[in-house]
Structures are given as C-alpha cells and as structure tokens.
C-alpha cells in the first residue's frame, strides 16, 4: 500500500531527534548553572548567569515525564495548525526529570490524570502524497 511507503517528516525539523527509535526533545543546558531551555536557546535564561554562547550545550531530554496538567482541544484550531482528519486531541504540560515543564499533544484524550507517567513518542498530524508530517506526542504509560 502507498501509505506504508510514506516518509515520516517532522513538521518543523530540529526540535526532536529524528529519525530515531527513541525520539527525544532537543534542548539547551547551561554548563554553569544547569538551566535547561526548550527549544534550545543561544544564551542561559538565568538572570544571574553570564550571557556567553560557549556556556551553552545541546542536550537530548528524558523521554519520560509526569503530567502536571492537561486538557482536550475539542474544536479545530484555525490554520496554520493542521490535524487531518480532525478529531479532538489531548494537550498536556509535562514535567521532565531535568526540571523542565514542556507542552505537547497527547496520544489520547481519555482516562487522563494529573501526575500520570507519560513517555515521548511521535505522531502524525497530516500527510500529503509523499510524506506524513509528525510532531512529538506524550503517551500514557502502562
């Protein structure tokens, strides 16, 4: 089938490791104070830390975390967001072990709870004749 041969392409490249068996968000970390920023930034966001590009290193974030809060987006947002065909989707703020709280779509909008463990995966939002366009998603564990 044609759909099986489609390539999976991040909607915006450079935000998570891809292609990958175990995709991870790509962030920056300050070597001095360990402040983590996503997406990666040129300078440390800590007001008391030096603004030196060489202090910043690129890190791949943990691919598991905990739901701090969530909701379901029931109506289709206007362009440029695309989810085709549209169906309601869960969105969460997820706490990662690095101390970062990150947004992302959930793989489900059912049986969700605050404090639930989630694992990062990827999922398709839309496709064309050649590619499936993907983003990172959080999948409840267990």
């Amino acid at each position, binding site marked *: 089938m044609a759909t099986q041969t489609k390539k999976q392409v991040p909607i915006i490249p450079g935000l998570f490791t891809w292609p990958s068996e175990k995709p991870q968000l790509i962030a920056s970390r300050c070597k001095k104070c360990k402040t*983590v920023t996503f997406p990666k930034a040129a300078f440390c*966001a800590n007001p008391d830390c030096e603004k030196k590009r060489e202090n910043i290193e690129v890190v791949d974030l943990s691919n598991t975390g905990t739901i701090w*809060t969530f909701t*379901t987006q029931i109506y289709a*947002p206007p362009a440029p967001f695309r989810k085709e065909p549209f169906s309601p*989707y869960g969105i969460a703020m997820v706490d990662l072990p690095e*101390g970062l*709280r990150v947004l992302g779509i959930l793989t489900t909008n059912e049986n969700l709870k605050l404090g639930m463990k989630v694992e990062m995966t990827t999922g398709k939002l839309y496709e064309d004749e050649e590619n499936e366009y993907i983003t990172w998603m959080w999948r409840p564990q267990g």
Partner: protein
Amino acid sequence: MKKFRDVAVVGVGLHPWGVFADKSMPEMAVEAITEALADANMEWREIESMVSGTYLWVSQREGMFGILSGTAISAAMGGIGIPITSCANACATGVALLREAYLAVASGLYDVAIAVAADKSAGGFFRPQSEDSQFDLDYIRYVMTGETNPAYWAMECQRRMHDIGTTEDDLAMVKVVTSKPSPLNPKTRYKKSFSKEDVLKSPMVCDPLHLLEICATSDGAGAVILCSMDKAKKYTKKPVLVESAVIGSPTFGDATIPLTYLSAYPRPAVGILTESRNAMAAAYKMSGRKPEDVNLIELPDNSSWHYFAYLDCILQANDGEAERLLRSGRVDPISGDLPVCASGGLGSSGEAVVAQGLFQVYEVVKQLRGEAGERQVKNNPKVAVAQTYGYAGNNAACLVSKAW
C-alpha cells in the same frame, strides 16, 4: 520610589464592544477620543502627548496602519504635531498605555496626555502572525502542539481544581455573577445574563471550560485623558487620582508556560503568574495602599479560571480565597461590598485585545464618579483596581481613587 506630581483622569471615552466590520480601527479610535474629549470639556488641540496601542493581529487586518496605530489615529483626528508613541504589550496594552500617559504628565513634561487604543480582534481562536519556523516561538508552539488560548486557560484551570478544589459549579457561577450587569451597560456586546444551567449546557471548548466560561474576541476602542491634578479642576468636578499605574514582567523560574512559549523552568517558591503578582506588588508599593483598601475591581476574566486566579492576585490572597469570596456574594458586581467586574467584565463583551485595559479604566472611573447609571455599584467605592493580563508574560495594573 521617587514621588512625582499628582495626575488625574479627567476624561474617558469608549466605543462600544462588538463586531464592526465596516469601521476601521482609527475610525473607532476617533469615536472614543471624541467621547473622552467631550467628557473632559476639552478640545483636541489641548492634548500635548499621546500613546496608542499597537494592533497585534496585523497579518489579518490593517497591516502597517495597525502597527503604527498612533500616527494613523492622529491623522484621522487631524495631526497637531504632538509626540506620539505606539506600544504593544499584548492584552495588557491598555493599562500599559495608561502608565505611559501617566509618566508623561507625572514627570512634569506635559500637562495633558491621552492613552488611546482600538482593536478588531473578532474572529475566534487567535493564531500566530508569521510562518517563521526558525525564530517565531508562537508559530512553533502553535503548529507542533495545537495549543489554543482556551487550551492554555483550561490546563491552568484543571491544575487549580486539583490544588484548591475549585468546582465546576464555581466556574459556572463566575459567568452567572459577572453577566448580571451586562444588559445594563450600554457598552457591552452581549446584553444577556445567564443561569448556571445555561453555562453548564453550553458546549465544552477545552475541558473543564465551557463556551460560556471563556471570553469571545471583539472589536472595541477606548480613550483616557490624563491631566496634572493642579489643572484638573479646569476640566472636571470629579478628578480621579492615579495612585499607581504599573507594568509587571515575569520572574525567572515562573512555573507557568505562558502563551507563545513551549516550556517553563520552574524554580522553588517562585509560583505562577509572576508578571501579574509583580505588577500588583508594584501597584500597592507605589500607592502605599493595601488590598483591604480596595473596594472596586475590574479584572481580566478571559475565562472563569482567570477570574479566580486574578481575584487572588489582586487581593494578594492565598489561593482559594477567590472561590470563597464568590460563594459568599461579597464580590457580586451589583450588590456586593467588593464589586468585581461591574462592567460585566470580558465575559460580557469579549476581548478587544489592546483596548481592553482602557475598557476597565473607563468602568472604574464611571463607577467612582457615580455615573454608571443602572449598573452603578451600591457600595460607594473610593479606591479601585484595574488589571489586565496578556500573552507572553505581559501584565499591567492601576490603582485609582476619588479625589474630590
């Protein structure tokens, strides 16, 4: 903090809130300015300095004229050669404009200054204004996570319910209470009061927020004229003293992921909405007032969650005080001893983003003067707070009082 000279509000004007497809933003601003000038018994040529709200949704409407709104509005009024600044602080722009006009007069540079803003935000969920996938975080956030404004509000609301025990009834009662004055205010968009059943039966938009628990987006325009207190009597018998007009910005380590951002780096004891709490702390410090001095509040009820979060913020209360106040009836906009959203709030009119703060200032000035007609509050307020909250960690607040 250095003490400047006293500044008074001497004139307020408001274009009604609604949908006005056939009017340009400068046209709407001219109507608001004309009303404010008449309110102050003042001629346009008496204005010495002006600050105007920059329209945020420029890729959708009015382009460069929305960005450079100040000179566009002065051209529509007829240019008089005065200094003009155009300012963008997201939804907090209106009260931020008040601060800029305040500083122009308080500093002694000018005797009369005007804050003006027009906005045509009508049109559903907000969306990013570029397709820059390299540097526009708002675009990146939107296309990768599908987070709309109500989705963000709903996530904060879900967390508040978990932490504090806010109930679905509490959320619905916000709309019931704030919509009471709506039919009595000539400037509101929706002339209707709602029952709890109406609210709970309205469609779910983002769980737990129903359609009637989030504000619409609207068109509107406002103008506020400030004058040095020593000359205010020339223009009004009822000058309203600006005790403070301040802007707050976030503190590093805030636990919120503000709209437009993809992450936060929460630090211990920093908390959420620091831009808003910082603004209120500055408003009280500058005025020398305390929360218990305040007896009239206009807050940013973009959603039922905001109502509680901002009532706590303005009263510098512990989380949960806001729900108790609502249940007690003390904050009823008509009968309460601490009326909140006597205008009907954003819920009754929708948000005309950069003009919204001036809608609030108009309301507290009218109420303090006793000129609010059928919706006049019953507690004879002396001291009022207006606070607006915006995208990307923007906040502004003012504290004003009767000065006659």
